[in-house]
């Protein structure tokens, strides 16, 4: 039954392939999120040159709101300097967040960004963000965390408010400090 053997082999390959496909869905999902802004995921770091090429749309004002969340059990504070900014698309803005480690331990935090509405996520471009890095803070230490961003001029007309949220998570092992 050579033909059976070949068929079984082929089907087994399909099985292995689909098992792999299950894992391939992980990067595929990221791509899909980047394309559609699904889940408010923001694309990663954007080159500052992308902004200069755009020109500023002075006609239009977009509200950018900042909200922060601390994960359960983490003894940190994270507060935006201001709760919202009125911005012109295409113009670069600087923003600061204040982080304080209230615990008695040196800890490393990681901020996870999310943008709402999700369709707007691709248009909120961050050229510098503390969320790109891990953030170590000693016990009781306070730090000012910078964010530089611009809103893309291509932002769909029906969106006038973008909300940027940061959820702060504790990373399990403190990295040794450089």
């Amino acid at each position, binding site marked *: 039954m050579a033909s059976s053997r070949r068929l079984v082999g082929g089907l087994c390959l399909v099985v292995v392939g689909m098992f792999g496909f299950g894992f391939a869905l992980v990067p595929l999902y990221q791509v899909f999120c980047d394309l559609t802004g699904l889940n408010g995921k923001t694309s990663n770091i954007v080159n500052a040159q992308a902004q200069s090429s755009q020109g500023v749309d002075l006609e239009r004002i977009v509200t950018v709101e900042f909200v922060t969340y601390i*994960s359960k*059990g983490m*003894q940190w504070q994270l507060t935006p300097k201001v709760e*919202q900014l009125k911005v012109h698309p295409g113009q670069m803005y600087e923003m600061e967040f204040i982080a304080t480690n209230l615990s008695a331990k040196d800890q490393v935090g990681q901020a*996870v960004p999310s943008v*709402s*509405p999700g369709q*707007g996520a691709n248009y909120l471009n961050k050229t510098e963000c503390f969320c790109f890095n891990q953030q170590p803070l000693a016990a009781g230490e306070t730090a000012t965390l910078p964010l530089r961003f611009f809103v893309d001029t291509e932002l769909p007309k029906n969106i006038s408010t973008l909300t940027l*949220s940061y959820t702060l998570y504790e990373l399990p092992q403190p990295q040794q400090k450089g």
Partner: protein
Amino acid sequence: MSQLERSVITISSLIRSVHKCGYLVLMMGFSNSALAKSMPFNLTEGVTDVSQQVYDLHMTIFIICCVIGLVVFAAMFWAIFNHRKDKGAQAAQFHENTKVEIIWTAIPFVILIGMAIPATKTLIAMEDPSDADLTIQVTGSQWKWHYKYFGHDVEYYSLLASRQDQIHNQKQKRENYLLEVDYPLVLPVGQKVRFLVTSEDVIHSWWVPAFAVKKDANPGFINEAWTRINEPGIYRGQCAELCGKDHGFMPIVVIAKPVDEFETWLAEQEQKAVAAKAEEQAMLAMSMDMDEMMQLGEQVYNKHCAACHQANGEGLAGVFPALKGSQIATQDILGHINIVVHGKSGTAMQAFGKQLTLKELAAVIGYERNAWDNNTGDVIQPAQVKAVMQQKDL
């Protein structure tokens, strides 16, 4: 379309009256609670334009389905009654008819298009990202909701108000059993309210049927929904995504007030928040005695802690640790305060620091250290709790 709508309305009112009769019959058979409100047998029309659209869409599709069902089943039962062997029916031998097959593929397709058009319109109306008058940050956690009025210094937790003795059938259940909370969300009528929904732990889902708003609260990500309420009133909903043990016990209550009343309320809350901070300062100076601490502590414990750690302090083996005789509740005081104030990450133990006052925290911690034969004799004071919050003496 208007004719269709009219027939939709006639049929739905017919259905409603049939429901009422059906309900009476049911009530006669099973009236196991005199308090039971009558249950609507259809989707709510709600109190927003969107919820009304959703209801109309629901009725349209429901009636289309009923009509199709009627035609198909009528044909089938016609065959069942008339084409039976004991009536002497001889079987025909046809087994295909391309024309008929094309027709009954095409007609459903046309019907589907007819359904898709209003559905698409409603969906686009629901996903309107225009500016809102008020933004509420809704945060779910095991097993309560937290509301923060964005741009205002008002935030609070909203917990189930039905008590454990009602849940365990020791006391008569109140009218809104399981649909009542201690601090409801208050919203203005007629304004566009936006909800930013997220979660602290597992996935929850914030659902108020009267607004046709149901949005998942995903940990680490924010989701957006909005509503514009047309009528003042009290609207009730529940968490709609399995979120662990007390998924059935985290209701949502919204009180919609006219704008001026709402603004008065909000201003009051902002003042209260300021006053609470002042009171906190005063509390630092106070000292509770054992009796007062145990009394208040027991109340707080039963409301916030007993659902997991159980009223007898023994927890649930393997799921929620016992406090009775536990190391945390009998040894290091600071460690005990710390875990109650800040919670424990990666577990269901949440941070109560923001939910309870200093006095309540001190009382409940003291209660845990003395109840169930823990008998440490420790009396905890608000100042000690505050010290832990500020990381002094650690």
